[in-house]
């Protein structure tokens, strides 16, 4: 009898290639996702050493961080951005890597298209030179972000040396209250454990609340786990997972499908499996959240207030409030906004856009607010257009744009101006993240849409849907 193992340990054990003495184990990587920002120096390294890409078929590239969200075909005005995109095109061609380029119907944010195309599957190890790779753990895969040197390492060897992380179980029980989404659950978790609360850990989310989430919701939850410092986050695969993956272009087909599902069903933490830490959350205590500071752990319920200056974190609070231009004790619902961004690898999927459109329907964006919706991928954009969501947004005064990372990090022209305040469905409210001097408040898609219309934060639980 083997001792009970966690989901993480099962995937880990299945991917250990070698255990060199005195060194970290070598882990085999099933899927390597690549984008334009963190890869050029890695390909240069391969060239310098005369090494090929070991497994081009396990390597998938797209452009997302730099791409403008203006209509496709508009030239990229930033010559350095154009050069970086050009470098990826050249590198993919030279090394035989599949690239979903600017004009491709499959283009989109790397963490959106991996699942959408069926590359992301339960039980896999997945890496990308991007911290939000944790997103893919929603499928019961072990997925984590790496730096450029590690990108080169994986390109060259299809392996990565990894120290075995610790395990943390976060169990969520009960039903999410109306108006409370996976984004709010994620922000609630980070608010509770802090931005380094999960450093060194792989989180497994469990409990009936998590089981009740759609794949989109699970992706949002796993996506944000890096904001608590987690190495990775995962949800055990179930019928919801299989239904999502089935029939996707790069998913197993035919007999291969049945075989795959049979294996995937074994990917659960065994009863009695040991976790290094366990946290339990009662979903009923959650509410829509809004961040008030300069990291995602600085968060409060929408009915709350910006904190007073006391306690142990006084200095950090002071620095954050000075940057955010907020006075201690300000009610969240009194904070007026200038911009709204609905998008990013956290919240740009069809379900997110539907939720935001439901709020926006029949209303107009506040005259003082500029609001944009950036679908996560071309496929999502077209699906949303087939449902008429683009019309709902446009009629309400939202801009409807092309897919990419956009204003989540503002590497393309979509940025905040100094002092502008933004309700954003993205994942980071760091200083300058969306543009130098810009002030970011993280919220769910529904909360962002409601803020766009009200001109300030407002409790979605009181919204009059039209």
């Amino acid at each position, binding site marked *: 009898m083997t001792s009970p193992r966690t989901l993480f340990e099962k995937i880990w054990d299945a991917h250990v290639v070698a255990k060199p003495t005195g060194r970290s184990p070598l882990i085999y990587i099933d899927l390597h996702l690549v984008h334009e920002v963190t890869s050029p120096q890695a390909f240069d390294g391969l060239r310098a050493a005369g090494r090929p890409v070991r497994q081009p078929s396990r390597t998938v590239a797209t452009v997302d961080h730099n791409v403008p969200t203006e209509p496709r075909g508009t030239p990229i005005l930033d010559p350095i951005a154009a050069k970086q995109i050009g470098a990826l095109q050249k590198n993919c061609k030279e090394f035989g890597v599949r690239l979903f380029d600017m004009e491709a119907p499959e283009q989109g944010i790397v963490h959106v298209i991996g699942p959408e195309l069926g590359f992301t599957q339960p039980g896999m190890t997945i890496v990308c030179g991007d911290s939000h790779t944790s997103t893919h753990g929603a499928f019961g895969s072990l997925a984590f972000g790496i730096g*450029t040197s590690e990108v080169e390492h994986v390109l060259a060897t299809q392996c990565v040396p990894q120290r075995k992380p610790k395990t943390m179980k976060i169990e969520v029980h009960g039903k999410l209250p109306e108006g409370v989404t996976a984004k709010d659950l994620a922000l609630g978790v980070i608010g509770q454990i802090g931005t380094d609360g999960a450093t060194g850990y792989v989180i497994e989310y469990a409990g009936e609340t998590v089981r009740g989430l759609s794949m989109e919701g699970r992706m949002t939850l796993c996506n944000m786990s890096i904001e608590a410092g987690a190495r990775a986050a995962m949800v055990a695969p179930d019928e919801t997972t299989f239904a999502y993956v089935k029939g996707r272009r790069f998913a197993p087909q035919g007999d291969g499908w049945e075989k795959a599902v049979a294996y995937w069903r074994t990917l659960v933490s065994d009863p009695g499996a040991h976790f290094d830490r366990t946290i339990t959350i009662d979903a009923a205590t959650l509410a829509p959240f809004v961040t008030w500071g300069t990291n995602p752990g600085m968060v409060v319920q929408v009915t709350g207030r910006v904190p007073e200056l006391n306690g142990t974190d006084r200095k950090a609070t002071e620095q954050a409030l000075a940057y955010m231009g907020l006075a201690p004790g300000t009610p969240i619902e009194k904070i007026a906004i200038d911009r709204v961004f609905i998008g990013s690898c956290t919240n740009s999927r069809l379900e997110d856009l539907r939720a935001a459109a439901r709020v926006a329907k029949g209303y107009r964006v506040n005259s003082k607010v500029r609001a944009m919706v950036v679908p996560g991928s071309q496929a999502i954009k077209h699906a949303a257009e087939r449902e008429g969501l683009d019309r709902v947004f446009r009629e309400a005064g939202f801009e409807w744009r092309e897919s990419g990372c956009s204003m989540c990090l503002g590497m393309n022209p979509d940025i905040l101006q100094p002092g502008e305040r933004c309700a954003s469905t993205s994942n*980071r409210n760091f200083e300058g993240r969306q543009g130098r*001097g810009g002030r970011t408040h993280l919220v769910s898609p529904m909360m962002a849409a409601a803020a766009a219309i009200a001109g300030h934060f407002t409790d979605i639980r009181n919204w009059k849907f039209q």
Partner: protein
Amino acid sequence: MKPFRKHQGRVVHLDRVNVDTDQIIPKQFLKRIERTGFGEFLFHDWRRTPDGKQDEKFVLNHPRHRGASILIAGKNFGCGSSREHAVWALSDYGFRTVIAPSFADIFANNSTKNGFLNVTLREDEVAELVRRSREREGYQLTVDLEQKKVYDDDGFAASFEVDDFVRHCLLNGLDDIGLTLQHESEIEAYEAKHPSPWA
């Protein structure tokens, strides 16, 4: 990769917790396709005013801290984005090591791959270093990776923990791709059993 054995240098204290990689190197500088030249953009939005001038209030710009090569900071240093550019910027600026009570995982991995040492000390030890660096102009520390010790010439000494393999790579300046490829036969055997589904 440049080995890291022992380094003596001047200290500068950045009085912040949760310094994220967006602060270390803002996104507008991630478009470069080289590994070099990031130093001038290190902490850009803190170092420079919006019109591009040096912000004299920022600690790295104080004349007494010019040439500092040891950065002391608060907990959870390097959180956020996986951008290795953060380590490249710190290195290129002239830092050899950061001392903090804790580091984010991806930043820590990236540091190792660039011969850059992260030294984790206890909060009270970091606080003592901060006190000493405030009191003494040109305060210097020695970070000795062979001994796993940080010390000054006036009685401060603290030990730190570091993974044995990380230490081995840093001491010898090893490129670990070469090490991994020593396991070619094991990788091949694994691949024979687990062929790519997309080949």
